[in-house]
């Protein structure tokens, strides 16, 4: 019995009204078919391609075009984007607000990306802050946080979080070659700052729906930082204890809030860290294989129990 037959049955049984039946049947038959996702993705890809081309063009032809022309073009796009956003935006609300127009989010995103291009160009050509990029990053992060909260935009919030990460000397692309103590400290500080900020803002009911973004970013950076500490520390078990605490906290949070991404973080990051600690000085292949067989089965059993008890399908 497919869903259409089931809807008919539910209508006959009186479980749903005729109006509900009509509506749900049309949804099931894809009548009408919503192109919302596809159009949003086209807009996103369009903005991204445009800004990539803009940056590429400027980086290649800046000398031929001249500073005045480049800055004029960038400023016009920037001003027009932000003018559009500020003129169209509804009055600010601390709660979740829908974008006033379908393209609003993408215009804001365009403006934010062009801001970065313009700032980079200004510093590169005129050395306004003598190469102190951390100040630019901090200013950019603050601006993006303001824009994200003003216009309720997750795109820009993510940009703000990555700019702030940059300010902390943290870029994901540099991780493999910079796993040193300094980076770890900055990473932990970054997690602490955004974790606390996210929690405070949520408690203040200021765009509480942003909290999940803060928490996911903080959790992943935290686990990477702790894991790098576990991998590199040879004597003290401080990082390992930290990993266990982080895993326990992530697991507890995930189960309590039914946010299973955190259960997955705890399981995978925790398993990698614990396995490293157990096996780092072991060279016996039989022991290593036996360890993985037993521990992986133990993890499966534990996760199945969790799935049975808590893991609702989505």
């Amino acid at each position: 019995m497919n869903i259409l037959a089931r809807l008919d049955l539910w209508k006959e049984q009186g479980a749903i009204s005729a109006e509900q039946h009509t509506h749900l049947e049309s949804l099931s038959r894809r009548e009408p078919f919503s192109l919302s996702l596809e159009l949003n993705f086209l807009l996103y890809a369009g903005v991204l391609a445009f800004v990539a081309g803009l940056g590429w063009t400027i980086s290649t032809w800046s000398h031929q075009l001249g500073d005045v022309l480049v800055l004029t073009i960038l400023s016009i796009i920037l001003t027009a984007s932000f003018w559009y956003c500020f003129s169209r935006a509804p009055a600010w609300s601390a709660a979740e607000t829908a974008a006033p127009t379908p393209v609003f989010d993408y215009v804001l995103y365009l403006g934010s990306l062009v801001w970065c291009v313009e700032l980079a160009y200004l510093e590169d050509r005129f050395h306004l802050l003598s190469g102190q990029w951390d100040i630019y990053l901090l200013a950019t992060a603050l601006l993006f946080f303001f824009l994200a909260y003003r216009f309720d935009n997750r795109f820009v919030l993510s940009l703000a979080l990555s700019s702030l990460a940059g300010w902390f000397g943290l870029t994901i692309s540099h991780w493999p070659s910079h796993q040193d103590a300094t980076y770890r400290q900055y990473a932990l500080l970054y997690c602490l700052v955004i974790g606390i900020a996210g929690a405070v803002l949520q408690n203040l009911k200021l765009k509480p729906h942003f909290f999940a973004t803060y928490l996911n970013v903080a959790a992943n950076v935290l686990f990477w930082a702790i894991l790098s500490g576990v991998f590199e520390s040879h004597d003290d078990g401080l990082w390992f204890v930290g990993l266990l605490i982080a895993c326990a906290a992530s697991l507890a949070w995930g189960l309590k809030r039914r946010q299973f991404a955190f259960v997955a973080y705890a399981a995978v990051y925790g398993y990698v860290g614990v396995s490293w600690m157990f096996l780092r000085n072991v060279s016996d292949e039989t022991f290593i294989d036996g360890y993985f067989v037993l521990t992986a089965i133990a993890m499966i059993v534990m996760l199945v129990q969790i799935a049975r008890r808590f893991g609702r399908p989505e």
Partner: protein
Amino acid sequence: MRIYTQSSEETMRARKLLMHWTGDGYLSKEQYQSLEQDTVSDLRTTNIFLRLVLFFFTMIAVAAAVGLFFTMFLSRTSEQTIGIFLLIFAAVSYTAAEFVVTQTRLYRYGIEEALAVCSVAFLCAGLDLFFFSGIPYSPREIQLVIPAVGAIASLWIWYRFNLWYAFPAAMIFAASLPAYWTPSHSAQHVFIAVLYAAGLICIAPIRSRHRFDTLEDAYSLSEAFLWLGIYLVFNLKIYLVFNLKISDFSLLSYWGSPTRFTSGFAGPFYWTTWVLIWCLPPLILARGVRQKDRFILAVGAITAVLTLVTNKPYLGWQRHTWDPMLLGIALTGVALLIRRWLALGPDGVRHGFTAARLSGNDKHAMSIGSSVLGLITPQSITPPPQPTNPDFRFGGGGSGGGGASGDF
């Protein structure tokens, strides 16, 4: 033949839809509780995160168990013996996958999926070691056994367990088959396309029998993969998209004569593929629109963009730094035009399509997507450095994230 009965899968689907509709406010909580009783299934499923983690740990357990077996009992044995045991492990893995589904009724649970995937991997590795180890020059015709068996096994897993990712795996195995039939690159491309087209011809009529039921999505996704596969086979410049370097384009421009771009391919074949990469996207889009199929529409849009991106290299034309800007303007323009055109229809609907968001799922997907895409954007729009330009100074900086990823 399928391990899950259609009624079980329909029940699971109905349950999922009930949750979505209640979340969207189309059904009341009381109605949900009442109707939920109607959708009780014997299948056990879980959410995507636990499914992924269970898949991961099952793979580790199986791989380690096999490694342990070889370490303990067969540490000094011939590769052919290892091959035989891998074939046995393939059978054991497959039997275990069947067992956990039939006995514990797991459905999209990660465990049975990992076991099924392992069985295909062991099967291919076992065949390779058993038949070809120690034989330096085995005939090419015999070597095709491995991809052929891999393709058939993947197709079986796809059909039996309804695991969508087994289908592209079968396509990848199938794509390596023509290399054993002919040394001609052009002929290989044609053979692969014929195989995929045959898949389309087989799937289309089956799919039409499953309109609005639970198998429609599976066939729709497979059809979308086949269309994408055919397009990728014919687009001979697709590698440029995945390895964008300005030096490649500069090199192309130096070659001058268009015939130089066809290196490795006969001229008529090369230009036929150029015609095809322009013909396929509208065809795929038309099919997607006609079927109201999200996956096929997405493939149509992706192939259209790929055609625009690879057209200049195809023709040997100089690529310009502002080409992405024009592409961006075109994409945005198309999106706005379609949105406006649809919005102007009665109730915002034209020909059964609307630009309005109808489901809370779309909103949820957009929320997650915007957060993730916002984080990766700084990496993705970083312009490539251009060593050919002596005036180059402003480059390598990530624009998004305040240029956090670059040195400017």
